């Protein structure tokens, strides 16, 4: 039997998953009797009674339970996983779109004008390395609203990769292509949309893809801080409830949503890619 490379790698993935889950399941038996433990296990506290890490079967059961009714709402501390993720996505997209509205035109300007680039570069260099969460106290104080502050933090963290990649992409557009626009008497706006934008699109979308990844990383932390709703808050809340099954389940959900967001941008990237 011959399998394609894709089929082989899919098979290998399934095998790895199955083996991983089996090892995990097997590694979490009930507590071992004391006399069967090694010296090392006794010394590291292996014998103490504790809330154990749940086996995958329990996590799966939890996932089934949560995903079969994702949108229930039973008060502030008990909402379905779908609602929590919905809140997080809403915040990420609001902050992200605001950032895009600022970063894309500004990036165009910086990319087209060496003077604007030099004038703005120092600010960008200082602001960019600041951890987005460092803005949180200031945001909370100035904006006085936890919801808006979370969105602001997303805004500030997603703006830089988009801004820098847009500027870089626009500045790097081949002068031959710009000359084609010039010899066809296209105005500045027409040139921007029909030549510079498609030429720089792959670089711009790469920046947007990096930004959405960072935004999704940051929203979890931001929601742990501001609380109330969202997947980040959910993880923290379940940790406080010592419900590790839910914690693991929500960690998986964070990964899956992040992957979906990323693959949406990967598809976009393929759509605008061109070969020279």
């Amino acid at each position, binding site marked *: 039997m011959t399998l394609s490379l894709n089929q082989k790698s899919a098979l290998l993935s399934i095998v790895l998953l199955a083996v991983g889950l089996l090892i995990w399941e097997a590694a979490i038996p009930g507590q071992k009797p004391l006399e069967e433990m090694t010296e090392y296990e006794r010394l590291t506290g292996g014998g103490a009674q504790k809330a154990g890490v749940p086996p995958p079967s329990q996590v799966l059961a939890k996932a089934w339970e949560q995903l079969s009714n994702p949108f229930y709402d039973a008060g502030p501390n008990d909402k379905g996983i779908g609602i929590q993720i919905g809140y997080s996505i809403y915040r990420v997209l609001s902050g992200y779109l605001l950032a895009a509205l600022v970063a894309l035109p500004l990036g165009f300007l910086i990319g087209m004008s060496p003077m604007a680039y030099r004038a703005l570069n120092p600010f960008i260099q200082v602001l960019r390395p600041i951890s987005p969460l460092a803005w949180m106290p200031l945001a909370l104080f100035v904006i006085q609203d936890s919801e808006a502050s979370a969105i602001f933090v997303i805004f500030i963290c997603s703006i830089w990769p988009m801004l820098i990649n847009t500027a870089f992409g626009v500045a790097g557009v*081949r002068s*031959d*292509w710009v*000359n*084609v626009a*010039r*010899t*066809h*008497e*296209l105005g500045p706006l027409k040139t921007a949309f*029909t*030549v510079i934008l*498609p*030429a720089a*699109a792959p670089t711009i979308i790469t920046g947007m893809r990096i930004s959405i990844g960072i935004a999704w990383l940051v929203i979890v932390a931001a929601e742990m801080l501001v609380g109330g709703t969202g997947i980040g808050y959910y993880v923290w809340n379940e940790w406080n409830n010592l419900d590790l099954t839910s914690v693991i389940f929500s960690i998986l959900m964070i990964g899956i949503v992040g992957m979906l967001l990323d693959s949406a941008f990967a598809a976009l990237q393929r759509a*605008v890619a*061109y*070969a*020279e």
Partner: protein
Amino acid sequence: MTKPFLSVEQLTQSFPDGKGGTMTVFEDATFGVEKGEFVCILGHSGCGKSTIMNILAGLAEPTSGVVKMDGYEVSGPSLDRGVVFQNYSLLPWLSALRNVMFGVKARHPNWSKTKVAEHSEAYLAMVGLDGDTIHRKPSQLSGGMRQRVSIARAFANHPKLLLLDEPFGALDALTRGTIQEELLKIWGETKQTVFMITHDIDEAILLADRILLMTNGPLARVAESVEITIPRPRNRTEIVEHPNYYAIRNHLVQFLGRRSKELSGRRSNGTPQVPETVRITMEETAEPEGDGDKSPRLHAVQN
């Protein structure tokens, strides 16, 4: 004397030489091109051919001097001056057809999409591209096909002046041959004025009505204007048998090999640098006083 259709008057271009001074590429270059004429400019690499062409296209500003077309001074690029660049002038994210349509749409903003497409397809067909090929992206086309698309895009717009910068420089000899013939055909049909840069002597003789010869830079000059006294229609196999062919060819080879160096580096001192007109002919019947004399005639006419 009436002004030619395209008139280049005392064009000077200098660039900073990177050591605080300036490097003058050419000084007070003065020449003209008549309407419907096919002119090739021949010279060693670095002498300033592309610089002249970019000024004619309006893509660059000369240090001093003016270019007039149809009596109007050239300032900035225009749809009346179509350009075919050596490389990369196709937009790689558009198909061949859409690249041509890009130009046609710019020229005729109020044409319907079908009209734009039909017009574009007609010009692609003229350079031998049709069927599936025209829906491919430039990266999926051979170098020769890409340059055909560029030529179709330029001709489809009916510019008053067509500028070509070493359009076939990157192509192999066989492909170059076929595209040269297509270029001749399409030029014969449209009778546009063409100004073309090349470094290939045979290509210049095949295509041009007149060849401008440039000396080496810096301080290059358009030193001679050589008339190609071979009747049209021409094709590559027949022109080599024409009595004037080798005389013209020898003259060009001599110029590029020796005199382009000797004549370079002279300052103009503010006087217009007009090329000498050279007319080479071996035909006995052409000149009455040339009876029996088989040597090529060289007529230098100061205009």
